[in-house]
């Protein structure tokens, strides 16, 4: 193509490439992050028309104020026992993350991803759903499994790909699956679970069921085409689904500007689809609970889907393979204006006179010890690379319901290779 002629009378175009405000070594100043006062957002009826949500898509629904009190129309008015269960589930998720991150660093497994700072997004949401509502999570909602009482040892067996792993060592660590607990098989491919959740919800509606679906993706994944198709389907069929966008500001090294955050909010995406959209303080467990409860009621009464943007912060690296100090200021996590969800719920319970620092410290110790003991149990089933894996044959099982001839042949080839190499089978 020949070079375009220079037109000296027109300004030169320029390409805008977003850049995060702070890079490694920079002083962090989040004073321009708009944090509306707790209790200031309105709470429409759950049957309200999606057009009434424009303002809610640009503010932040917050319940817990800086003084630890719950205020405003979104206060879910949970009893102290429920609050303590919520706090425990979040603290347990954090303790589990700490232990498994260390297990990866010790070479016991290949990979791990923490959810530090985002525990409320999974735990409080799971508590607001019915146990049999179907969750289509991304890889950072381990708090759902923990909240629903999935055994920690099963999670660890999966992380270690050991002989106790019910996924037979087929999946990368943390790609859990549990049908029983309504936790859909996690895929490495981003946002694919979004239309799947909508489809599950449509099926539930078409069958006259009362169960609803909920799905989660990060703000980075909203750029995938699947996000768009899921929102379109959800709106068209008024599917009983909750579409959660966990805006933790970072998609590996890319700040949220690369998913469009410079121009708008993620909750505001809902407006264009005709979906109810809420933007909430994702580090406020009561706001997460209230919004999820509201969206669940909306879905269960055939009023259709809700998109919830959880405004939060990914406090740690993307994964054990990531070093966030290479692309963002180390001060960001501590300077984050919405604080730490565990600490905020703890302070709320203390403000209510239903908790104290001693009990909290004791609980942390108890949870750490429980996780440590469970880890010891899990390691009896083996850790990655220590031979206590699944039978060789399982590699070929489950590709199809019945194994076709070519896989049988390849399986025999593999067994012959193992015999020739003198490699022993898994220790039983």
């Amino acid at each position, binding site marked *: 193509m020949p070079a375009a002629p220079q037109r000296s009378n027109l300004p030169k175009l320029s390409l805008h490439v977003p850049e995060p405000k702070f890079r490694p070594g920079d002083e962090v100043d989040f004073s321009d992050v708009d944090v509306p006062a707790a209790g200031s957002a309105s709470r429409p009826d759950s049957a309200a028309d999606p057009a009434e949500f424009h303002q809610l898509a640009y503010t932040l629904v917050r319940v817990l104020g800086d003084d630890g009190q719950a205020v405003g129309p979104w206060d879910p008015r949970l009893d102290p026992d429920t609050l303590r269960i919520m706090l425990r589930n979040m603290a347990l998720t954090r303790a589990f993350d700490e232990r498994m991150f260390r297990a990866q660093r010790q070479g016991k497994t290949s990979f791990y991803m923490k959810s530090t700072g985002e525990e409320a997004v999974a735990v409080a949401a799971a508590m607001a759903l019915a146990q049999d509502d179907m969750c289509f999570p991304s890889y950072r909602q381990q708090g759902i499994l923990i909240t629903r009482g999935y055994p920690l040892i099963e999670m660890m067996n999966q992380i270690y790909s050991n002989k106790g792993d019910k996924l037979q060592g087929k999946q990368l660590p943390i790609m859990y*699956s549990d049908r029983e607990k309504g936790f859909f098989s996690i895929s490495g491919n981003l946002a694919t679970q979004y*239309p799947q959740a909508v*489809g*599950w919800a449509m099926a539930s509606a*078409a069958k006259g069921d009362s169960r609803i679906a909920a799905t989660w993706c990060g703000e980075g994944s909203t750029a995938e*085409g699947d996000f768009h198709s899921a929102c379109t389907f959800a709106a068209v069929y008024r599917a009983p689904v909750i579409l959660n966008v966990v805006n933790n500001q970072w998609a590996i090294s890319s700040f949220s500007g690369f998913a469009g955050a410079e121009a708008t909010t993620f909750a505001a995406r809902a407006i264009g689809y005709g979906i109810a959209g809420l933007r909430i303080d994702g580090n406020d467990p009561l706001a997460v609970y209230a919004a999820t409860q509201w969206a669940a009621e909306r879905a269960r009464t055939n009023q259709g889907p809700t998109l919830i943007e959880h405004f939060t912060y990914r406090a740690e690296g993307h994964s054990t393979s990531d070093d966030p100090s290479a692309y963002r200021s180390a001060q960001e996590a501590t300077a984050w204006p919405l604080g730490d969800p565990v600490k905020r719920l703890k302070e709320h319970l203390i403000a209510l006179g239903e908790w104290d620092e001693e009990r909290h410290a004791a609980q942390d110790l108890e949870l750490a010890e429980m996780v440590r003991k469970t880890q010891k149990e899990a390691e009896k089933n083996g850790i990655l690379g220590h031979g206590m894996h699944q039978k060789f044959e399982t590699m070929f099982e*489950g590709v*199809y319901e019945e194994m076709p001839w070519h896989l049988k042949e390849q399986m025999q080839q593999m067994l012959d290779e193992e015999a020739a190499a003198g490699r022993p089978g898994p220790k039983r």
Partner: protein
Amino acid sequence: MNMIQAINSAMDVMMERDSSVVVMGEDVGYFGGVFRATAGLQDKYGKERVFDTPITECGIVGVAIGMGAYGLRPVPEIQFADYIYPALDQLVSEAARLRYRSAGEFIAPLTVRSPFGGGIFGGQTHSQSPEGIFTHVSGLKTVIPATPYDAKGLLIACIEDNDPVIFFEPKRIYNGPFDGKYDSPAKNWGSHPGGEVPTGYYRIPLGKAAVVREGEALTILCYGTMVHVVANTVAEAGVDAEIIDLRTLMPLDVDTIVESVKKTGRCMIVHEATRTQGFGAELAAVVQERCFYHLEAPIERVTGFDTPYPHSLEWAYFPGPVRIGQALKKILKD
């Protein structure tokens, strides 16, 4: 019945038998499909079981996977195989892997129907044969019928199958068999035995080829429209070929193929799809590995050329009677 009616009948039969079967896709509901394959189904079974979708192939397949996870048995339609690519991630990364990655907890019992193949002046985006992309994906099954009878029996088997199936319908033969003579009057299925289709339930097992003509001179492996083009060309040339309609490409009926090639000593592979890394390459490898000492001539591949599917030069592109005839001469000369 013609093939459209047979396909329609298969869905009708399965929707009647199994309330978990749902049909979805662009224009499939009220209108009954751009090829009429779903005509009348929405009237009969209601909008909650037969419905139109937004124009988003990744959405159609993604939503169908979620429905499958719920416990339904979705039969999504992709209007043309040329438009299946936006759904590739959902098919390859999700549907094909779901059983494996969840160790059987979740399955994707979908049947993705899609018209495919050329010979209709469809140009670049209404003629493609992308089966080789799908046969390469572990966890998917790929099925292609060549007659209305097979289309119905195979489609019923696909819908009942608990694995995800790509069901490619050769649209050139929707209304009648095609012998490759594009300038002759069109035929209908009325005079072809494959056009006799029972109205009720029957199934043709997946993974089983059909020997459509027994012979001694060579074995010809083909599927879809090419079964008819090959049969007619062989008859006119007076060659005693054994013609095998594969029907299921994955999993492949290797026994029928090997038995035939061992008998005839020669093997020709015919498909419309482009040549390089087309499914024919896999067939040639399988035959070479298993029948090497029985082969009396190199394996011949008669295929589309390695170009996008052209519009005006369709009949120079299409692997018709001339290309097949020359390959027959070559493979039989020794």
